[in-house]
C-alpha cells in the first residue's frame, strides 16, 4: 500500500483483513471437537512415555521398546503421589511445573528466547550509537520523586531478586524478575535528570550472565553428554536447593534480562550525536 493512499482505505483494508482472520478462527474452532468428546489418549502424545534417554536405552536393550505388549501409558511403574517437602529424587524436582517445562524439558527454547532479547537490545543500542550529549530537561523532578524512587528502588530490586531466585518454587522466574529489576532502574532514570548507570558494569554483567547460561549448557554436554541437561541432583521438592540446575539458570537469566532491559532504557533515554563521517 502506497503512502498517498487515503487513511479510510487503509483502515477498511486492515479491518477486513482482521475480519477474515477472525472468521477463519471462528470456523476453525467450530470444527474442533468439544472437550468431553475428545479421547485423551488420542490427543496427548502416546509416546510421552519413554522420556529419558537412559530408560529408553535400557528398555531397548531388553527388547521391550518395540514389543507389542507395552501399553501406551505406563502401568509397570506404580503411581506414588508427590508430597511437598518429602518426595526426593523426582524426575525434575521443581515445585513450579511451568518452570520445569520452560527450563528443563524445553531449556533450549529458553536459551533462544534470551538470545532474542539480547539481540533486540543489541540492535537498539547499535542504531542509537554515537557520542553522548548532555541531557537537558525542561523540568527538574521534584524532591519527593527523587527520594521516593531511591527508596522504592531497593524494595523493587529485592523483589526482583526474590522472583528469580525462587523461580522453581513459586510463580515467576528469570524473565519476570529481570523485568521487575529493570522497571526499578527506569524509576531511577525518572527520579533524577542526567542519571547515568555504570555502562561498563552493565555490559560486563550482561555478557558474563549470558555466557554463564551457555556454559551451564556446555557443562551438561560434557558431563551428561547432552546439551542443557540437568547435571545436579534434584533434591527434595519444595527446598530452595532443589530442582538441579534450574535455580542456577534462572539466576543467570534474571541478571541478564535485568541488565539488558536497563541497557535498552538507557540507550533510548540518552541523546546521542551520530558518528558516521
Amino acid at each position, binding site marked *: 500500500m502506497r503512502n498517498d493512499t487515503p487513511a479510510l482505505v487503509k483502515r477498511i483494508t486492515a479491518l477486513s483483513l482482521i475480519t477474515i482472520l477472525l472468521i477463519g478462527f471462528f470456523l476453525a474452532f467450530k470444527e474442533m471437537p468439544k472437550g468431553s468428546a475428545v479421547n485423551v489418549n488420542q490427543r496427548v*502424545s502416546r509416546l510421552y512415555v*519413554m522420556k529419558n534417554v537412559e530408560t529408553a536405552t535400557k528398555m531397548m536393550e531388553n527388547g521391550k521398546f518395540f514389543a507389542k505388549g507395552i501399553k501406551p501409558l505406563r502401568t509397570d511403574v506404580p503411581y506414588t503421589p508427590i508430597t511437598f517437602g518429602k518426595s526426593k529424587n523426582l524426575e525434575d524436582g521443581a515445585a513450579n511445573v511451568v518452570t520445569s517445562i520452560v527450563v528443563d524439558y524445553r531449556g533450549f527454547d529458553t536459551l533462544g528466547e534470551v538470545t532474542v532479547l539480547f539481540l533486540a537490545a543489541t540492535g537498539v543500542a547499535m542504531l542509537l550509537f554515537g557520542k553522548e550529549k548532555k541531557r537537558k530537561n525542561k523540568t527538574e523532578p521534584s524532591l519527593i520523586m527523587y527520594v521516593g524512587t531511591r527508596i522504592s528502588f531497593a524494595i523493587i530490586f529485592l523483589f526482583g531478586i526474590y522472583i528469580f531466585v525462587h523461580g522453581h518454587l513459586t510463580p515467576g522466574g528469570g524473565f519476570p524478575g529481570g523485568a521487575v529489576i529493570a522497571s526499578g532502574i527506569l524509576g531511577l532514570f525518572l527520579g533524577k535528570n542526567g542519571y547515568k548507570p555504570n555502562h561498563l558494569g552493565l555490559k560486563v554483567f*550482561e555478557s558474563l550472565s*549470558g555466557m554463564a547460561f*551457555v556454559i551451564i549448557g556446555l557443562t551438561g*554436554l560434557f558431563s551428561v553428554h547432552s546439551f542443557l541437561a540437568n547435571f545436579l541432583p534434584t533434591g527434595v521438592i519444595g527446598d530452595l536447593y532443589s530442582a538441579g540446575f534450574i535455580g542456577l539458570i534462572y539466576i543467570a537469566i534474571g541478571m541478564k534480562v535485568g541488565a539488558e532491559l536497563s541497557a535498552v532504557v538507557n540507550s533510548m533515554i540518552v541523546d546521542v550525536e551520530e558518528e558516521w563521517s
Partner: protein
Amino acid sequence: MNIFNNAALLIGVPLLFAFSIPLFGLISKELAKWVTLLTIGFNASFSFYILFAHKYPTMVVMGNWLPPFGENLYIGPVAAFLVFVISMIGLLIAIYNLWAIKKGDVIRFSVLFLMFTAGASGIVLTGDIFNLFIFMEITGISSYALAAFGPERRALGGAFKFLVVSSIGSTLYLMGVTLIYTQLGTLNIAEIAARINQTTPGLLTFAGILIISGLAVEAELFPFNGWVPDTYTGAINGVSASLSGIAAISAVYALFRIAMTVFGKSGGAYVSTYGKIDLMALIALLATATVIIGELSALSQKNVKKMLAYSSMAQMGLIAVGFSIGNKLGVYGGIFQLVNHSIAKSMLFLIVGVLVAVGVGENIDDFKGLWKRNPFLTLTFSIGAFSMLGFPLFGGFWSKFSIVAASVQRGGWYDFIIGLVLFASVVEAFYYLRIVAYMFASDVELPKVKTPITPAIPIFILAVSIVAIGIFPQIVGTFSAQAAGELTHKMSGYILHVIPSIAAH
C-alpha cells in the same frame, strides 16, 4: 536412532561467543570482527566434518529428553548440506566485512552478524516446530537491525518495513502452530508429521494457510514481499548479500519442511498435502506470480541494487516452483537452484559493494565501460549474471534445466506454469545481458580503479565455485539428490530417524 549430541556445538559455540563479543570489543574493534570470523569458521569446519566424515542422518537430543518429549536437532542430508552452505557463505561475507565495516558500532554489528548466521543454521537444524519459531525470531531480529545499519537514511525505511511485515508474518506462523498444538498436543515435527491426519481437515487447512503465509514473508513469495526492494536497496551491501545468501536458504527450507514433511502425504509420485486444499499447489501459484512480477519489475530498474533485489525475489519464486512440483527431480532442482542463487546473488551484492566503495557507483549507467576500468570485477560480475540466467557451463544451467525437466515429468497444469516461468527467464536474460553488454561494449573513457585485496578473496572464491559447479555439477548434485530423497519420503527420510518407535503405534 543415531544420536550425535556434540553437534549441539553448532549452536552453542556461536551463542557463547556472541555473548562474549562485547567483552572482546572492550579490547579492540578489530578483535570483535575476527572473533566473528573465527566462530563462523568453526561452524563451517564442523559442518564440513559432519557432511564428509560423520554418519548421517543423525540427531541431537537436548537436555537428555527423547524427541517427542524434549527438543531435538535433526541432521539429515538436507540439514547437513544446507548448514555447510550457510556457514561457508557466512564465512566469506565475514571476510568481506573485515574490510567493509569500519565506521559505526562495529562490535554490535559483529554480534548481530554472528547470530544471524547461527540462527539461520538453527532453522535448518531444528526438529521442533516452536524452536523453529525461536530461530526465525533470532534470524529476523538480527536482520532488521543489520538492515538498518549504515550511514544512509534509506536503510532505516527499508528496515522498518521489513520489521513490520516480518513481525506480522511470525505472528501468523505462531497462530498456526497453536492451532495444530490444540489438536495434537505436541510440537515435535516428526510426531506432528506422523499424526497429521488425525486432525480435522478444516482446522488443518486454516492452520496450514496461516503457517505458509507467515513463512512466505521471509521466503519472499508474492503478496508478502513488499519489503524486499526497499530493504535490499537500503541495507549496506554486505547485509544485502547475507539476506539473499543466508536468510533465503533458511526461509525456503522452513517453508518446505513444513509443507512437505509436516503437512505432506507420503507415497505417490509427488508430494501433496492433507487438508481441504493442496498447500503445494497454493505455493506453486504464489511462486509463479512472484517470478513474473519480480522479473518484470527488475526490467525497468535503473539502480543495480534494486534490480538485484527484484531479481532475488524472482529467483526465490523460481526455487519455490521447483520445490512445489513435488517430485524428486523438482526438489533436486529446487535445492540446486537455491545453492546457486545464494552463491551467485551474494557475490553480485559484494561486487556492487566494492564498486560503490571504490567510487564507481550503483546505477546502471555507472557500469558503462567497466571492462577497461577493472577487468576482475567485470569478469566476476559476468560470471554471476550468467549463472543467474542459466547459461550452460555455469551453475545455474543445471538447476534450471532440472526444474523444467521435472515439470514436464509432472505434466498437467505445471506445463502452463513452466511456460510462464520460461517467459520470465527471457526477461531476466534481457536485463542481465544488458548490463554485461554495457560493461564490455561501451567506449566511455574513465580512469582505472583498483580492487582492494580483502574483499577480492571472497568474490574470487565464489566465482570459482560457480564455474566449478557449472563444469562438475555432481559437486552439489549428489548432496541435492540425497536431500530431495529426504524431503519427498517423509516417513523413511525423517520420521523414523527421529522417533523409531512410531512404527509400532
